[in-house]
């Protein structure tokens, strides 16, 4: 029969302690098919055809692409379910049957650029790296040769409606039914943080992993600012956030749910949710057991008599919390000659230390000096146990620095490295050179100790938001933190003067040539002075008369 496919959609709403609200949409399509087989797949139902063709044509094993506007403020908002750096980020694991990975990568970025209407064609060898340890596959597979992995970021990429529209078109119900009707661009882009992503990977269908299916997850994370709508009242509703309410689930979805995080307020003292629901669910997410109120959109009673669902969350009081792992990055130094990149990593666990993998990809025009790398924790030197450094080559590839650092409990670890700014050719500057050049976010990946035991059985029925990162151990969960991108100024030449410079420099060379030529080819002679003008005219007249000259 037909290969089995399944579509699930969910929305998680988490009120944040700063008063902002975090909404995370996940749309997952599971399809038991084999793109790598000889005979091409031709009948697509729930899985979008454009992505299926991308997978089979470019022999992709895993693809992760995200477009983010804004920076996730970990200190105020806690940890996101799915972290992403500002700008565009793309990382791909290719199958080991690919012979020319760089050529396939170039074609893939151009095709994805067309699919998502983004300028991913700016991804080239100068901002692509092959991390050796930080981006292990998130799906199943037995190839871990990092020659088949490519990672690139474009921190300058701006996300707008043109990127949202093709993303929405990939959904089975489009934006016509189900949770996707809430995705209206006027409200979504009027937010503090907005990130849309597509993740494709092969997963196991059952416990023994006898069959594998392809999983496509489309995620959209958005944080709405408390103060933006101008009301100032600590009250959120679906209508206020998205200017729409829900009327039905997507008919093609096997599950369509809304989860509201009420862990911090089980008794309803801090905020109240209406319409009330009796469905409760508990899930292990980010190392913590959280409780959620569940609204099942496949049940007709959820919509009530008005046949539309507008969830309302009203705050009564506030509190603050501290995330376990969080990082900052900034550029120190003054002037346009040198500088220093400082990355600070905070471990807020009271007694446990854990290792983190720091990945830094710095463009070639900021020349890093690796002998100035210092890692200090609590004022003392903290030597990393694994350093993988690939120096940059001018105009070909960026620096790649990956380190495994052990963060002591309740401490700040500071990583500093000095760099020198290069002067580029005048054609290599962007049209706004004094804006500066972007350095992509650092990626910090780590296994953070969890407060409660995690469930390692990944095939059990779980909400989508807690099943993204595979869980291998019970005592820790995987977390990825992105730092801020940096904006660095480079010294600029004068762009209005190419012709003048060429002329002046050639003049100096000609002065050298001319002096030496004169001295080499001429010899000293006694100068016979030429007579004055009057005498010369007199001589001419005398010659005409036939008389000897003066």
């Amino acid at each position, binding site marked *: 029969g037909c290969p089995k496919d399944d579509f699930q959609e969910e929305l998680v709403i988490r009120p944040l302690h700063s008063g902002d609200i975090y909404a995370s949409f996940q749309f997952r399509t599971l399809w038991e098919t084999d793109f790598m087989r000889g005979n091409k797949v031709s009948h697509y139902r729930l899985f979008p055809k454009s992505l299926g063709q991308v997978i089979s044509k470019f022999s992709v094993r895993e693809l992760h692409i995200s477009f983010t506007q804004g920076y996730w403020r970990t200190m105020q908002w806690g940890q996101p379910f799915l972290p992403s750096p500002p700008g565009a980020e793309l990382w791909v694991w290719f199958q080991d049957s690919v012979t020319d990975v760089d050529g396939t990568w170039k074609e893939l970025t151009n095709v994805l650029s067309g699919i998502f209407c983004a300028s991913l064609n700016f991804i080239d060898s100068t901002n692509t790296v092959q991390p050796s340890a930080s981006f292990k596959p998130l799906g199943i597979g037995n190839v871990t040769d990092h020659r088949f992995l490519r990672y690139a970021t474009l921190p300058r990429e701006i996300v707008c409606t043109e990127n949202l529209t093709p993303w929405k078109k990939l959904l089975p119900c489009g934006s016509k039914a189900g949770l996707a009707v809430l995705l209206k661009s006027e409200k979504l882009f009027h937010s503090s943080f907005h990130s849309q992503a597509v993740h494709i990977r092969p997963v196991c269908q059952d416990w023994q992993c006898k069959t594998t299916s392809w999983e496509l997850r489309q995620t959209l994370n958005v944080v709405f600012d408390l103060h933006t709508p101008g009301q100032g009242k600590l009250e959120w509703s679906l209508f206020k956030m998205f200017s729409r309410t829900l009327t039905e689930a997507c008919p093609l979805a096997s599950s369509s749910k809304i989860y509201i995080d009420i862990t911090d307020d089980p008794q309803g003292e801090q905020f109240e949710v209406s319409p009330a629901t009796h469905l409760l669910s508990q899930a292990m997410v980010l190392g913590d057991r959280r409780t959620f109120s569940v609204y099942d959109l496949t049940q007709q009673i959820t919509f009530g008599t008005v046949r539309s669902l507008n969830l309302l969350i009203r705050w009564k009081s506030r509190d603050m919390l501290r995330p376990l792992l969080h990082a900052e990055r900034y550029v120190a130094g003054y002037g346009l000659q040198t500088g220093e990149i400082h990355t600070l990593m905070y471990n807020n666990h009271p007694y446990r230390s854990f290792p983190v993998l720091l990945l830094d990809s710095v463009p070639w025009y900021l020349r890093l*000096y690796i002998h100035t790398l210092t890692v200090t924790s609590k004022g003392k030197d903290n030597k990393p146990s694994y350093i993988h450094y690939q120096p*940059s080559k001018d105009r070909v590839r960026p*620096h790649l620095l990956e380190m495994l650092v052990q963060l002591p409990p309740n401490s700040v670890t500071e990583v500093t490295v000095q760099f020198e700014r*290069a002067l580029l050719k005048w054609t290599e500057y962007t049209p706004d050179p004094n804006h500066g050049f972007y350095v992509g976010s650092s990626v910090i990946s780590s296994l953070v100790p969890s407060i409660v035991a995690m469930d390692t059985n990944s095939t059990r029925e779980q909400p989508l938001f807690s099943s993204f990162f595979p869980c291998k151990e019970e005592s820790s969960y995987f977390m990825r933190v992105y730092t801020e991108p940096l904006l660095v100024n480079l010294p600029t030449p004068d762009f209005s003067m190419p012709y003048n*410079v060429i002329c002046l420099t050639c003049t100096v060379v000609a002065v050298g040539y001319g002096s030496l030529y004169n001295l080499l080819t001429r010899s000293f002679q006694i100068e016979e002075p030429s007579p004055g003008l009057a005498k010369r005219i007199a001589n001419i007249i005398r010659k005409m008369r036939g008389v000897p000259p003066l």
Partner: protein
Amino acid sequence: MAAPLTLLLLVAVTVRAALYRSSLADLISERVEVVSPLTAWKRVVEGLALLDLGVSPYSGDVFHETPLIIYLFHFLVDYAEITFMLADVITAVALYLSVKDYNKQVFRKQKYALEADRYPLDCLELIRSPKEMQYIPLKVAMFYLLNPFTILSCVAKSTCGLNNAVIALFVLSTIKGNVLLSAIFLSLATYQSIYPLTLCAAALLYLLQRQYIPVNLRRFSFWWFVAQYAFMYLGSLFVIVGLSFFLLGSWDFLPSVYGFILSVPDLTPNIGLFWYFFAEMFEHFRLFFLCVFQINVFFYTVPLSIKLKEHPVFLIFMQLAVISIFKSYPTVGDIALYMAFLPVWSHLHRFLRNIFLVSCVLLACSALFPVLWHLWIYAGSANSNFYYAITLLFNVAQILLVSDYFYAFLRREHHLSHGLYLKRKDGSEATLVLK
């Protein structure tokens, strides 16, 4: 002569040691006029650190020194200051000894020419006496050691000092007449930066003159000597390059060192003409102008050798000056080397025309370089054109200095053969022009 020289060496070493211990050392080692991407000490340390990390220093674009430097500093990195001070001392002593020997030969030739009555009667005041030539070697050593450019270069631990030492040893061995050592030191100098290749012609002319082999293209003895020298030079060059290959096990250093010097990919500002020119070059013409600028350094060799075949030491001075001005990444250390030779031609100063102007311009430009760099990079109130203008002026001043000395040298030679006080046909005083 040993005592004043020792005193001079002590003073020089003291000045350098004092500056090493002060806070100025870090500041000086960052100055772009003193260090270039080829010679910076920071990059040597970076290359050694990359080697410790297990990555080849030539896999990136930060390290452009030759493998022998890696090998040398692998053992000497803790004694780097002493190494650079020793290099300066070796250069000064080598220049001292070579100028002393050269002066002896000049005086001897002059004596023979006087006895043979080859000089016209009125140019007796141009004849040099041993008394005036006595202090010249000491002055040469002083000009090198106490030149602020040399001191800055040493305190910054720029490997230009090592290059200067090798070239000075080459000059010493050439003037002493030792053909093998001359070839070996020249090949070491060429191995470090390609441009000393042009000194081959000067060395050949000098050694031929010293062995009384006439420079006649039809004679076998001339070609036999040239072949011998070329064999020794190329042989030692191949041995050194082969040794470098075995040191790191790959040929990566060839594009990283020589490809870098010739193709100028790094546009870090320096005191030369290349950086801004190629920063503003239209991409279409880049290769053409790169070839033009590189040929510019090499093609003065043949005309200068033909004109100065009787005076190979002056030819060495001219070649060193041309290399220092027109090379792709010049620093003040290169300038210090050819300026050290100026006391040898101190008898020419009556024929120098522009020396006051040139020295004022050089002093002013040396003072303005750091000022305009600060205004561009740190204060942000000037732009790159200011620094570029001073670069142009500095190079024009150097070119005028060199051509002025060349003019004075040729003029003195002319006077020595035609007489000092020249008269016109009607008996009145004549003026000499170049026609």
